[in-house]
């Protein structure tokens, strides 16, 4: 409780506190577990970082990667899972693996590889958040990283062709969404009435897919047909991330602070 926790992550848009899946997972978990997180949104003063965003900084530690950040928060006694049984804890791990293997490639493809989406939405948005000259380099690097990841995990050596895997990854992603919808059923959260780690992960992966306006939207269309998953995202957004465009407190005009319950985001599109 004593150490101040600062999270450096990508900012929000389209009604979300963050557009980046991994940042959103960490932010959601912090809300669920009650961790007092000071969120520093990446803006024009950012000079780049050694690790991958999101990054949690405390007085003595720098932690990157969502899994490690969540572990660190748990060790600091901010645990959203203490009501879960052992089997539910095991299920959490399994479903997170399912998300990473089946859903993540298609989400990465929708955001970073599909040319219409990338050039009209993703690249301009990310480039607008960071200073020149990083804005020229970083989005391209992230796009290549995403393509690499898809090809290396799904493609077939020695010739990695994207077209062959595209159909397969979207099919897997749709199946994964159906499985999640079946599992959620009519409950409010995945394990009972309080949100846990799995809810944070599912929210982090689904919410950007649900809310961001893309030209090529086949996966988004599929998600919108699964009404319980959409309801799940909307519930979390309205209960934990109430967005008030009017009142905000900021230290200087380049830094956004997210206090508990109030989020200010400069929404460029509706």
């Amino acid at each position, binding site marked *: 409780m004593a150490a101040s926790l600062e999270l450096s992550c990508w900012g929000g848009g389209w009604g979300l506190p963050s557009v980046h899946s991994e940042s959103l997972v960490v932010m959601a978990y912090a809300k669920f577990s009650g961790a007092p997180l000071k969120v520093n949104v990446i803006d024009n003063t950012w000079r780049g970082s050694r690790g991958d965003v999101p990054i949690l900084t405390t007085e003595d530690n720098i932690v990157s990667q969502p899994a490690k950040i969540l572990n660190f928060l748990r060790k600091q006694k901010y645990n959203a899972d203490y009501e879960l049984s052992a089997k539910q804890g*095991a299920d959490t791990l399994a479903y997170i*693996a399912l998300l990473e293997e089946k859903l993540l490639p298609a989400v990465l493809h929708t955001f970073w590889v599909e040319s219409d989406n990338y050039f009209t939405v993703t690249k301009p948005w990310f480039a607008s958040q960071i200073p020149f000259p990083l804005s020229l380099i970083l989005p391209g690097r992230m796009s290549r990283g995403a393509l690499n*990841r898809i090809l290396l995990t799904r493609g077939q050596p020695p010739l990695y062709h994207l077209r062959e895997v595209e159909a397969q990854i979207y099919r897997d992603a749709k199946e994964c969404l159906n499985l999640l919808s079946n599992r959620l059923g009519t409950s409010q959260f995945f394990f009972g009435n309080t949100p846990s780690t799995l809810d944070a992960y599912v929210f982090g992966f689904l919410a950007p897919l649900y809310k961001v306006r893309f030209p090529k939207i086949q996966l988004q269309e599929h998600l919108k047909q699964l009404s319980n998953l959409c309801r799940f995202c909307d519930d979390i957004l309205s209960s934990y991330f109430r967005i008030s465009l009017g009142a905000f407190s900021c230290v200087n005009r380049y830094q956004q602070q997210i206090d508990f319950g109030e989020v200010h985001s400069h929404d460029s599109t509706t």
Partner: protein
Amino acid sequence: MSLVAEAFVSQIAAAEPWPENATLYQQLKGEQILLSDNAASLAVQAFLQMCNLPIKVVCRANAEYMSPSGKVPFIHVGNQVVSELGPIVQFVKAKGHSLSDGLDEVQKAEMKAYMELVNNMLLTAELYLQWCDEATVGEITHARYGSPYPWPLNHILAYQKQWEIKRKMKAIGWGKKTLDQVLEDVDQCCQALSQRLGTQPYFFNKQPTELDALVFGHLYTILTTQLTNDELSEKVKNYSNLLAFCRRIEQHYFEDRGKDRLS
């Protein structure tokens, strides 16, 4: 496989029953095969045994290159070739045999999730240990992987494969992990499997499914393969219900059928 090709294969598969001369191809058992490939092959063999389908195991040095997807094992049934457990399960289902038909939707989701957990953590950890841990690479992997080939091909192939695996590890974020962290992940995975299994005989109570075959393949191979140190098998041995699970499947599906004992 593209969607059209897959639909086509399913149709052809449904037309014929399972033949007697179906064969499974893997690398050479004694000198060449590695931990991860052995685990995959054993998982497929266990699955086919559970479905009561006869299969003959054939060892070939170039099995990896013969496979349509580059991964072992693959099965040759009639005039079709299918590789990897996932597609093989689909193929067998098209022929009318399935282990998971009795499960409801939520259970099927759980089964798929746990199978991904095994692939995500256990398989990746095995690959890491084999190809990114310098001690194991030097002593075991390099020598085994290229053993059927003459110099300098054996070295070239081994280095090429190592480079490929390292690229993949880096892409999924395992490049910077230390061996201890990897072993911790294995422990977490085994703990999750152990908790899910509980005191039941199989993961979905009375009947085994493809999940049981996959878990058996990996755990049995980890327990019985000699590596530079025993840390990996120690992690599995901590969970007595997993050990009992492996023993049960081994006895029921491999020894009782009069097949050769698994080495």
